[in-house]
């Protein structure tokens, strides 16, 4: 790999040119995207993402940002919110790109209220895991919250989404799922109370869809 100068010089980040000629980045010696061909990696990643017709999505993990650029080009109608813990990378990405449908948010400066508001929106979350390197646990926890797999997050989302019966069941703690990831199966168990409500019946349909 050929080293290139880092205009934002931060000792812990190292920008290089990959074998394919595209820029790649590492942080404290950990690669935040492919060192061989980050563009091919970005292409493969975008191909895998669904939710092409929703208005807004979250991309969790920026890295050097090839995947965000590609996604933004492929989905000009979609608002993309990129969340990352590396302020330096966010700055560099914003300086080098002016994509009208992309917004970035530095997780270091994200307030509790902002996070809560994001969780309540229950947006699709696209995880770009190579960019999580070294901070996997933090990102994983955040993904769990954003995609409503924790009791706390699901409760917030249930209230915002008018799923009052589920919110109530989560408040009552009918099942000890605090440390687990909540799945549709858990929701089915939580909704055992009033099986005749619209909400309970709708959850039964959703459960049936994945049986």
């Amino acid at each position, binding site marked *: 790999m050929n080293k290139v100068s880092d205009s934002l010089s931060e000792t812990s980040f190292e920008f290089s040119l990959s074998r394919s000629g595209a820029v790649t980045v590492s942080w404290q010696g950990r690669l935040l995207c492919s060192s061989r061909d980050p563009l091919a990696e970005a292409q493969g990643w975008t191909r895998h993402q*669904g*939710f092409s017709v929703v208005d807004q999505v979250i991309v969790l993990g920026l890295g050097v940002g090839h995947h965000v650029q590609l996604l933004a080009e492929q989905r000009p109608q979609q608002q993309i919110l990129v969340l990352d813990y590396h302020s330096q990378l966010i700055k560099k990405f914003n300086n080098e790109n002016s994509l009208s449908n992309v917004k970035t948010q530095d997780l270091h400066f994200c307030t509790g209220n902002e996070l809560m508001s994001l969780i309540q929106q*229950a*947006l*699709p*979350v*696209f*995880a770009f895991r190579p960019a999580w390197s070294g901070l996997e646990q933090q990102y994983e926890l955040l993904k769990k919250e*954003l*995609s*409503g*797999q924790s009791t706390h*997050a*699901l409760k917030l*989302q*249930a209230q*915002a*989404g008018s*799923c009052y019966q589920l919110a109530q069941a989560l408040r009552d703690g009918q099942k000890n799922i605090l440390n687990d*990831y*909540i*799945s*549709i199966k858990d*929701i089915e168990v939580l909704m055992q109370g009033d099986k005749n409500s*619209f*909400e309970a*019946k*709708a*959850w*039964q*349909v*959703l459960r*049936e*869809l*994945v*049986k």
Partner: protein
Amino acid sequence: MKVLVLSLLRLGDILLHKQVVRSLNARYPGVQVDFAINDSFASCKSLLPEVRHFHLLPRAILQRILVEQEQSAIAAFARLSKFVGGINAEKYDLILDATHNRLSVKLCALLEAREIRYAGNKKTTQNAWESYFNNQFSQVAKSRFHYVDVLTKSLGLDAPTVLLPRTTTAKKIVFQVLTSDIKKNWGLHRFKNLLDRVAQEYPAYESVVVCAPNEKAEIEKVLPSLQYQVRALGLREVQEELKSASLLVSGDTSIQHLAAEVGCPVVSIFIGSADVQKTAPYIKNAMLVQANTDCYPCKHSESCYQSSHLCSASVTVEEIYRNIQVVLKGEFMSRTNGMQGYRTDADQRGFMLIAGQSSEENLAKDFERIIWSFYLSNDWQAPVPAYGSTVYEILNDWTQRYSIKAISQFAVRYQSRVERIEALLTEGKNSFAEISKVCMSVGNSPSGLKGLLEQLKSWHLDAVAAFPEHSDSFLKLQFALHKDYSEAFSLYRELKSSLDEPLNLNLIRKQLLINLVRSLSEKGELYEREFRILS
């Protein structure tokens, strides 16, 4: 009148559900019909001009949210609520669940309409056809009726008339060489041999291979584009091809149903899990060739466990070619006895008939179908059941295919079978009488009935072994015998209604047979000639 049909299965089923629309139009002239389908099949909308509006269930994305958990389950809830809200806002007079699975039953519980017909709806009385659909058709047991007939009858509609192939002077044969299920694929090399044979014997005919765009490369490896016309087409374009074709040769695919819809004659290859009785194209004179192996038909959900695809090898190129000849010549009744396979037709009561070769076994099968349809449609409980006229219709058809002597021999042998079944059922009745006696005396606990139940189970096994061709008569009883009961009374009630099924069927069997024998013996040797004059 506004009706919604829930059609949440695959493309072939959606196309077959067009027949439900025909039944609805016959029952409610001027009816406005909407469909609910999976959004992955939105492209088939143009094939169903009779449907006013489609509600699209975002099934794939719901599954993605719930399985891959890239979004909160609350988002899935919101999407489903929107779908349901869209349906309920239409205020339908009637919703028909043509999907008939656990998902659709649960979905029906969310829907609002003046009437909703779905399996297990406790607000409506279950008709015998619905019970047949649940207990026989949807299970591994073979069905005596086509899917469209069982479905429409179980939804409380009349079965539509079986479609007629159009006459054509076209000289084009369309081949659909791949199916969506690898087990149902006959094999590209066999199709190549068939195409070569057709080109050699019918040089005036144009052969066109149709496929989906993603199948073209695979097909062209065996059928190179320099020699064969391989066309990657959308559904609408395939429909246009079929409108100007003289024949479609296909596996059990949605394309065969598309062909039936435009009156294009069909030769279809049924292998793997494809069952001629259940999913034949709903058109007369389709020629169906099925596999001839012990493992056929296999379960839809299971992959092939054989070391090679035996069922596809059991259907020869020669056999398919002979069936093509029959269709192109229009000589459907001239099939020789050596030929495998079936021809579709309509029976005397309007249901689709999958006619096999002329044999006593098939006479018995045809007769049993009539008995079952009498039973399921409740016609046997009419003040004056139409046994006589039904027998007249049966003979009208049979005498075109069988000699009077063959029919008489069948009747004599069948009479003895009916008597043996009756004797067996009397034993079962006695065994059940013991159970009901104990039920009355021991109160409401089923525990004291264990010994007697074992006795009835053993009788049931003997009955099925003695009359395997009538095993479906005892299927309901089989389910009833293997259920758990907490109350003796519910056990009694369930067993009684299950035992009533073979008893009532035998009652109808006897009545029809009496009429058959009477008609045959009254007319004696002169019958054949006189009957032909009458008909």
